[in-house]
């Protein structure tokens, strides 16, 4: 930056966002667990199998400025081949069964699956529909269920922390 542009620039007013203390402390605990169990980072691949898109929005929100979970060692990756964890949302539809199984198979071992949201955990209101197979664990093994319609970013973080603790035992 040259001196002229510095002089012309208005002074920056930075409004700090209210820090969510619970979220921060969950994040820091998660950071420690990730460092210890996963060697400093985990990579998550999201798979939508029948969600109404709200759970996707909350997962994507984890990377937005208020949460910015990359600082805790969590990244969302573009391919299952790069992933440690599959975050699966929605009740599994017949049309997504094959894609879900292929994604699961493409994920290298050791792999962990979390079901995110009520529909993914139990089938929710869609459980009785002709178009669905059922919750995620009716198709692939699930390590942890995070309920909610959809779960908040903070709830997803708490779920990840629980998964880390159980991952160590596995």
């Amino acid at each position, binding site marked *: 930056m040259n001196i002229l542009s510095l002089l012309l620039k208005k002074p920056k007013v930075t409004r700090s966002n209210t820090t969510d203390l619970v979220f921060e402390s969950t994040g820091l605990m998660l950071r420690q667990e990730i460092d210890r169990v996963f060697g400093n980072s985990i990579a998550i691949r999201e798979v939508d199998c029948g969600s109404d898109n709200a759970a996707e929005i909350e997962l994507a929100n984890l990377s937005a400025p208020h949460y910015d979970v990359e600082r805790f060692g969590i990244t969302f990756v573009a391919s299952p081949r790069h992933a440690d964890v599959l975050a699966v949302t929605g009740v599994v539809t017949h*049309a997504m069964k094959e894609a879900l199984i292929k994604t699961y198979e493409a994920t290298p071992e050791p792999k962990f699956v979390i079901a995110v949201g009520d529909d993914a955990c139990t089938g929710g209101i869609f459980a009785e529909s002709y*178009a669905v197979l059922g919750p995620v664990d009716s198709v692939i093994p699930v390590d942890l269920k995070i309920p909610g319609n959809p779960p908040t970013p903070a709830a997803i973080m708490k779920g990840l922390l629980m998964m880390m603790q159980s991952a160590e035992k596995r």
Partner: protein
Amino acid sequence: MSVMGSPGLPSSWLIKSDATAVYYSVPAEDLKNILTAELARESRLVWIFCTDESRTTEVFRLWYVIEEAERPEFIVLVVDTSHPESIASLYPVASYFERKIADEFGIRFEGSVDERRLLLHECYPEGFYPLRKTTKNGPVQTTEKTAPYEFRQVQGTAVYQVPVGPVHAGIIEPGHFRFSVIGETIVNLELRLGYLHRGIEKLAEGSDPFSGIRIAESISGDESAALACCYAMAIETIASIRIPDRAAALRVILLELERSYSLLSDLAGMVTDVAFSAAAARFLIIREELQRSCEMITGSRFLKGILTVGGLSRDIPDDLLMALKDTVIQSLVDLDEVFTWTLSVPSVIDRFSTTGVVREPLIDPLALSGPIARASGRACDVRADHPYGWYLAHPPCVIFKRDGDVLARFSVKGEEIRASLTLIKEMIPDIPKGPVHVTATIRDGFSLSALESPRGRTLFWIKVIDGKIDRFAVSTASFCNWLAIEHAVMGNIVPDFPVINKSLNLSYAGTDL
């Protein structure tokens, strides 16, 4: 109500007329002539849906929903037939509706240009027609895929295909895109949706109309308030329920809040896809503040559970509304700053301008609506054209642009967020006092309802028999608007597809149902 004269149909054909629609029973052989006359008068076909009235025979009832210019009520042409004729040559969007009906009811449209399945994939067995009354909702024996879905083929030297999805690289919904490309230039794109088909329309059948709203709001998460409200309006018309003034005003607050946070993620997505992540971060900060306000006033970051048939399920206290107002005022300041900043950056303009053009002549044949139509030169908005609830007395000023490119959609969406937030800010001090819910008993009947969701025209048609939902038909804006993307990408380069897709930001779940 001006029933006479308008479509020039014999009054003996009139079945029913209410605030949203006028229904005519039309002999099957006259349908095409009437639709040709409607086309000449620049009416738009916005929806075709089917009902199984006979319940045993193979005669089905088709409902053609027409939007005439300058007329607040929709015209619905009702045809009983077992061998309908395709009307795709008059209204191209009809092909999409006809394919959906063919999946659901097993009806073959004579002269159809495309008879491939639309939402039911190959895994569903032959002869499985979920919305027939003889088909019970329950587990279905799927088959191993036999014949693969046939995509349109573009052939020639140097043409290659790029298949994308259903599992994408980003955190988004599943869908398949089949590009045909020469070099980097897209010469054809074909969509394959239906991966999220959850059987929503069948699931709702037999439900209690009051609890059906929970199904409606699960159709598409980031427009759940719009879908719940539109559904509630249909039931309220059937049961002649007039919701209290306070509920009507609070519904507008919720709908406009939803429009704001939904469109903000579109803006953030667009600038992310042209590598201007600094602005994306700031759009996302505003959006998160609004979503936190949603949670503060309703308990849900997606406004779920608050809307109910007859008003709202609980009141929103005035002190929370004042807190919302403060957030909204700050959001307006922040939005103006980052919006103006974005539009002053040459590299953003370079990527947005002339990219992904949706041309104005496509709007009517494809029944496009919402910000997409408004960015292509059409000042259409259900709130203004078919006003409902609070908007009856306060129709909004419709924002529109002419260029139809990503830049126009970015501008329209940005200005719409500003208009919505301004409306919320101005409404809050004047929200009437009183109850927010009226209890009522349900009656039998049917009704159409229309509402402007963040993505455009949302339509519900609900029929109640013996106090239970007999038919739950829904058409979200995304269903028709998806067709625009196949045209918008033509001649663009593959690397511009993400920003074009994001500028349209359509709901997969809202289409697949």
